[in-house]
């Protein structure tokens, strides 16, 4: 059996779960799929998932699962795995999964393959594709050391709308025993740091700048290009880490996710954490000195060269009218 661990918060399903269901369906090769929902009160999430073409939906509810903690979810995950003895466990590669899946794998002493962007073959013999070296290389990897193998599916690698529906999966309750006293993390309520003064999600065009810009003094170059294109300025994470642009202009898994009409990546190499935030853009332009930079994998138009020559040349061209 393949077990998919869904992600929900307060009765709302995280969309990435559907992408993971699609991955499980591609992987299954006739193996039955069960989807498990973990939480204190999961509301209608199980019913929503029961519309998928899967064998069953398992509901593991326990008061100790709200709020989320890695100790609580690792305990619940272990109880679930003991109950259904799956060959493979698939999870969406979210911040929550990144927190508890390694703990679960460590306790089980079973393999965990993270950040998977492709699957070749089916069932227990499958090979998983994942980025390495900041996306410069793609690795084909196999789990080693018995089942179940845990696999996390990168956001956007599979299409949520490719998940086959039409099932009427049985919804079953599963008892998970969790020792609440053994949960060591005490979380407070999530919050947002600053009010989002700029909603980059609404921008028609975005000029995003990365490490290739080299120093804060060069940021105005990106701003000039943005102005000439009628675009908002955004950045990859390192630029915001350095304080060269405010955090609210960060694109990627830890920042905003955008899909504008035009996305210009200026000196951005294209690590997976950045790509997940922008690869849905309609037209992507990459300007980078490194012809092998992963950003070119998602670009519609690419220019290999010195951005300090090319960006001013584009501004000059646009100002010609």
């Amino acid at each position, binding site marked *: 059996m393949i077990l998919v661990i869904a992600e929900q918060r307060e009765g709302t399903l995280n969309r990435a779960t559907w992408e993971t269901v699609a991955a499980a369906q591609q992987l299954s090769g006739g193996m039955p799929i069960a989807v498990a929902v973990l939480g204190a009160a999961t509301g209608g999430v199980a019913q929503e998932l029961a519309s998928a073409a899967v064998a069953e939906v398992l509901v593991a509810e326990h008061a100790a699962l709200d709020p989320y903690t*890695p100790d609580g979810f690792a305990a619940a995950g272990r109880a679930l795995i003991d109950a259904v003895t799956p060959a493979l466990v698939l999870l969406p590669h979210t*911040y929550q999964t*990144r*927190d508890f899946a*390694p*703990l679960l*794998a*460590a306790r089980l002493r079973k393999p*965990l*393959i*993270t*950040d998977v962007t492709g699957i070749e073959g089916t069932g227990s013999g499958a090979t998983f594709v994942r*980025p*390495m*070296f*900041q996306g*410069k*290389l*793609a*690795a*084909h990897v196999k*789990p*080693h*050391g018995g089942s179940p193998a845990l696999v996390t599916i990168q956001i956007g690698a599979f299409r949520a709308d490719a998940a086959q529906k039409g099932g009427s999966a049985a919804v079953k309750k599963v008892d998970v025993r969790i020792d609440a006293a053994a949960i060591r993390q*005490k*979380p*407070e309520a*999530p*919050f*947002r*740091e600053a009010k*989002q003064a700029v909603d980059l999600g609404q921008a028609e*065009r975005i000029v995003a700048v990365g490490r290739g810009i080299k120093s804060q003094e060069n940021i105005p170059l990106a701003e000039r290009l943005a102005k000439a*294109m009628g675009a908002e300025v955004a950045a990859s*994470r*390192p630029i915001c*880490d*350095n304080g060269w642009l405010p955090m609210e202009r960060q694109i990627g898994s*830890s*920042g*905003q996710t955008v899909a504008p009409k*035009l996305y210009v990546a200026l000196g951005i190499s294209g690590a997976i954490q950045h790509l997940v935030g922008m690869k849905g853009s*309609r*037209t*992507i*332009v990459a300007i980078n000195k490194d012809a*092998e930079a992963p950003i*070119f*994998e998602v*670009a*519609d138009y*690419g*220019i290999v*060269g*010195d951005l300090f020559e*090319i960006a001013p*040349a*584009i501004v*000059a*061209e646009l100002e010609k009218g």
Partner: protein
Amino acid sequence: MKIAVCIKQVPTREWQPRLNDQKTWIREQDISYEMNEPDAYALEEALRLREKHGGEVVVCSAGPARVQTVIREALARGADRAIHVEHDTLGSADAFVLADALAAAMNAESFDLVLTGLQSDDQGHGQTGVILAERLGIPSSTIIMDVQIEGGVLRVKRELEGGWFQWIAMPLPALLTIQSGINQLRYATLKGIMAAKKKEIRKAALPDGLQPAQQIVSLAVPTRSKQTQMIGGSAPDAARELVRRLREEARAL
């Protein structure tokens, strides 16, 4: 406070990937290396915590002899001493092997706090820290952007998706995986570099019988999901052509 920082040595960002003949790992002979960036932030955070609370910072690294370079760099930035689990096979080891190797060397030290980067810029499993916490029998929290310690209680700010954060309290000892950008990095001074030469690096042996949990079948340059139209020529020519295509083909301008 006795603080451990686990650091990894990884290829530099400028490195152009080249594969070994079997295409199962990279060609190590032509690589220049640097400290894994998130680990550098973890080291900086440890040094700041020592400045505030006293104690010592111990750098821990598992890898071949070459990782001495980043260990010395960490000592030069201000760490007090180091533990090096040395073995030729550790350069390409997976998270389970690295965590077990580090745990064996670190266990008897009874650290109050263990910090490491949230993931490595080479294999990037994002697992070693959390598995290490479990092997050391201490709680963990990941992707941390602030660390506060008061009255023996640790309170950390965890990054969530899309600009959200959350404070989490937990008892010490604990392990945290640190996110890049948590602080501003310091660099080694000449005085620090000189002082580092006299600091202790304890060598630890790799325990026997550690098993990897995954195997790299092959490595390759990724295939493109889109047909990228590359535009060449001089900067003005490329700019003119790009603008023309964005206007006429893509209708994006």
